């Protein structure tokens, strides 16, 4: 393998491979360390490849609601709306529930039944939904989720046991005990 041709190897690795590598790192590193390494790496962090999966679940548990919203909007913007999975807990603002993704993990969030009824029809790409410990939704929301025609045969819905009463002909629902 020629020395010379490898000299700028990592800098020029295709952006989606770099994006994949970075998305495995802790949030703090992606935001504060990686962009300072060199300009081409900084560009990758600003672009969509890093943000196909947005996982800020742990961080969202300690931050203020307005900071969470700002962060979330920033990541969604960077992904150019192309993210497939979102994991965040404690969403406070109801409008945040307009997120469309294949995998939504929104435990301990504050959306209510009315919002769910409104938004559920748009979630036709869902394969996985976690709404555990969302205290403001009940049977009505579960019916809305249940009536979605999911794209894939494999999907899972996680909810807490208070929803057991919902007529779940959907054997793919899983209930936390």
């Amino acid at each position, binding site marked *: 393998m020629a020395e010379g041709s*490898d000299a700028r190897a*990592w800098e020029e690795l295709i952006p989606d491979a770099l994006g994949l590598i970075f998305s495995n790192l802790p949030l703090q590193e992606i935001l*504060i*360390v990686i962009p*300072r390494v060199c300009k081409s790496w900084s560009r990758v962090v600003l672009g969509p490849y890093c943000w196909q999966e947005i996982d800020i679940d742990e961080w969202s548990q300690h931050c203020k609601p307005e900071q969470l919203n700002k962060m979330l909007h920033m990541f969604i913007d960077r992904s150019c709306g192309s993210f497939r999975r979102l994991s965040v807990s404690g969403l406070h603002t109801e409008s945040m529930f307009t997120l469309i993704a294949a995998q939504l993990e929104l435990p301990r969030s504050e959306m209510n039944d009315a919002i769910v009824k409104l938004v559920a029809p748009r979630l036709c790409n869902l394969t996985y939904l976690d709404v555990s410990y969302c205290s403001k939704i009940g049977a009505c929301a579960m019916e809305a989720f249940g009536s979605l025609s999911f794209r894939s045969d*494999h999907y899972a819905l996680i909810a807490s046991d208070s929803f057991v009463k919902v007529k779940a002909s959907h054997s793919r629902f899983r209930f936390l005990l």
Partner: protein
Amino acid sequence: MGKTIKLISGDGEMFEVEEAVAFQSNIIKSLADEDNADDCIPLPRVDSQILSKVLEFCRKHANSPSVHTKFAAIPSELCPKHDGSAAGASSSESSSAHSETCRACYDAVMKLVQWDLEFVKVDLDLIHHLLKAANYLDIEDLMFMAVEGAANAIRGNNPEEIRKLFDLENDFTPEEEKEILKEYSWLDDPFEP
């Protein structure tokens, strides 16, 4: 040996491997489907040193469930416990429940993950080549592990250390670097646990 596939590396070396091994690569699989069985498949962009590492990985993964598919079921014909007993398609066992309850599968996958993690504890140069090869040959599990190997090298290091490891030039001015840190000043304690 069952049916074999012949591969030619970029530097002209021939590798003959079982189909199950070679077909870990979606590219090789689709090329083999089109061409007639006697031909060798040329892989001009992968040289023999890398190809031999790639095939080592593929050999290990040939008859195992993919380690990183999270919600897909592990088909029972890949389960160590049921090995040899089910005739594949005729198995009436509910495959959707299989991976969640089968301890044997879980253990096998965990062992494979350990092996994979050792496999990518190599120098970054090699990881870079494995990444490119996995991308070119479309080998999902290898791509996943090479990515993990690279991320492991980055984790916990500061920018200067990362530059040294990856042989990158710092093209920022000190002012520019300060700007980046300032960007998150609206978070008072950005990542305080």
